């Protein structure tokens, strides 16, 4: 099977998923709820998937234990992609320094639970979310008045500043990093230890589900509609009375908070962080996850995050060539499916419009 064929099968798979969604939408409420429940149950059983005959061969990650790939990579990437999707996909703000918020979250937990205090993880986590939210507001207030591409480079700079500061300040553990970070407290049979990654996965998955629920509520609210308006045309939104700056700042802060949440989960899992865990390239991978899945579509972000995290582990057989393959795959997906694997609904209509040869947007932008 050639790569393009597999690409096509992936895209048709995405199409059939959306078709399935439409079919489900027509069913009665009880059918929909039970389908959802089965899906969620299947997700909670994810760590055992490699033991299922055919499915196992598809999802297995040779060379690394599957549950730890789930917790260290997939959960984090999905969460981060959800957060970045608010900023990039919903509000249309290009953020290339998202790793900065992720690092702020992780470092807050590390400082409060190991370096300078001995607070339990459960207390550190909300503080970390608040601190990264604050970081989002602090970064956003001066920069959100800038136009799109300037924002990209400024946020990129922010990500670097956070990393370099952590690298050079003794107070932040400099380049040696911070170890002995507190783990989440054990709940009944769920013991958060180094040996077993599954409890972390359950915790992460639950967090993701809660975040998805909250974001869905937000997306369909006045805030979500304002983001939509800002993304489509900022000037028009402003004219219609949308306080664009306020809502952009909200998007930034909420995105940052979710990034910080992911960071605190990560810190609680690995228990040791140092600045090299937060390179600039990670920001770019995060953005790739969002756009690969389909910017503006939450399910797209989930799929994109999971794919970007899982694919390099699945194809360990390629050994050192996997990053190269990943780069090529990014280009090919963008060339043949520029809206991402699961495009947003509204965009889909516009996309159909532009299917007929149009001269309107010859260069992919309109001034």
């Amino acid at each position, binding site marked *: 099977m050639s790569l393009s064929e597999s690409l096509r099968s992936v895209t048709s798979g995405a199409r059939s998923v959306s078709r399935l969604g439409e079919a489900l939408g027509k069913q009665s409420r009880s059918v929909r709820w039970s389908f959802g429940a089965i899906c969620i149950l299947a997700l909670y059983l994810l760590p055992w998937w490699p033991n299922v005959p055919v499915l196992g061969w598809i999802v297995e990650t040779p060379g690394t234990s599957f549950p730890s790939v789930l917790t260290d990579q997939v959960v984090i990437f999905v969460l981060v992609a959800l957060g970045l999707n608010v900023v990039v996909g919903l509000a249309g703000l290009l953020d290339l320094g998202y790793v900065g918020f992720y690092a702020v979250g992780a470092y807050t937990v590390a400082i409060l639970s190991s370096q300078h205090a001995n607070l339990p993880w459960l207390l550190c986590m909300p503080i970390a979310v608040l601190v990264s939210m604050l970081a989002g507001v602090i970064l956003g207030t001066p920069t959100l008045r800038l136009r799109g591409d300037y924002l990209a480079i400024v946020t990129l700079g922010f990500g670097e500043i956070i990393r370099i500061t952590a690298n050079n300040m003794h107070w932040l553990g400099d380049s040696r990093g911070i170890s002995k970070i507190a783990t989440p407290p054990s709940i009944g049979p769920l013991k958060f230890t180094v040996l077993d990654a599954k409890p972390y996965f359950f915790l992460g998955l639950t967090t993701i589900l809660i975040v998805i629920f909250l974001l869905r509520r937000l997306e369909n609210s006045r805030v979500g509609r304002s983001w939509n308006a800002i993304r489509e045309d900022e000037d028009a939104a402003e004219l219609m009375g949308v306080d664009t700056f306020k809502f952009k700042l909200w998007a930034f802060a909420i995105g940052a908070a979710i990034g910080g949440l992911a960071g605190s989960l990560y810190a609680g899992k690995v228990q040791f962080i140092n600045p090299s865990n937060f390179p600039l390239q990670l920001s770019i991978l995060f953005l790739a996850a969002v756009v690969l899945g389909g910017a503006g579509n939450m399910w797209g972000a989930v799929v994109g995050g999971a794919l970007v995290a899982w694919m390099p582990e699945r194809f360990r057989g390629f050994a050192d060539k996997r990053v190269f393959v990943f780069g090529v795959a990014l280009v090919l997906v963008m060339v043949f499916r520029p809206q991402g694997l699961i495009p947003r609904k509204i965009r889909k209509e516009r996309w159909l419009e532009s299917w007929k040869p149009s001269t309107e947007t010859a*260069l992919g932008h309109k001034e």
Partner: protein
Amino acid sequence: MRDWLIYRTFWDLTVTGVALGSIYALVALGYTLVYGVLRLINFAHSEIFMIGTFASLITATNVLGLPMLEAGQYPYRTGFQLVLILLACLLGSMVLSGAGAVALERAAYRPLRGSGDQFGAVVLAFVSAFVVGLIFFDTPKSNLIFGIIGTGPIAWMYLNIFRRGRQAPRLAFLISAIGASTAITEAVAIWGPRDREQYQTPRVLEKKTLFKLFGTDIRIDYVIVIIGALLMMTALLLFVNRTRLGRGVRAVAQDVETAKILGVNVDFVILITFLLGGVMAGGAAMMFTLVYDQSKFNIGFLLGVKSFTAAVLGGIGNLKGALLGGLVLGLSENYGSALFGGQWKDVIAFVLLLVVLMFRPTGLLGESLAKARV
């Protein structure tokens, strides 16, 4: 005492800062040109620079046969021979970087604009076939053969998809650029003879002091870099401002639709823009190897980010802004690392950018490729 350090070394820092700034400026021109015309952050431009440094290395060692060391000494050359070698290296990097930029445009960006052509289809098809080949074969040679065989049918299929002429959203371009950048870097890291190690380039120019200025040695390589960069930039400005094609570039930057109606071949103009950016990056790459005598697969990334910062600092889309931004960035980085310590160098660059953008939201000189003729 760090404050004393900057007093004692002020002129030293100035000279190296200007030289470094010239290299930033040359690379920044590529970002600014493409941004001015396409409103696209050409993320893979840093890789074009990286290709340039390797082209310079290949020209020096493989084509001209220069050794790394000659009887324990650097292979210094003098006079006419030296000039010829340097020019050959410059030509090599410019050609390869320019070609790389053009290939990048046609394979990774043009299909997204909905006007993909045979060339892009063939490049993409070859890369796809090559990647598939990685599954079955382990030696680079058999991969290559498999890639070449697979190119034909896949290219035909891609071309059929291109005919639909779909227009992608802006973010897609950025991701495509990031993908291309990753693929190019990794390809060099995997299949280069020294993998991820650092490469040395033969040092043919003896770096002696030309003259003293304010008690500082002015080394010959810095002089070459500064003068070379100025010459290249002047040539670019003349091209954009005085030639017919340059007028086309400005027209497309100003208004694509009107330019198209007036008969400007937009795709060709974009190609020229990428070519110009690539050639400038190639020149910068050769000068970089001249000063630092080294290259590495990931050498482009940080330099690219800095150069893009320089372009934004000066006002993106503004050619003179790129020059100013490059110089300001190079100088402030040097002074800053003397003041606060070298580890804060990158922070200084970004804080400076933040401060400038807060007070001048479109950069120091404003954005105006369209109005480049002043």
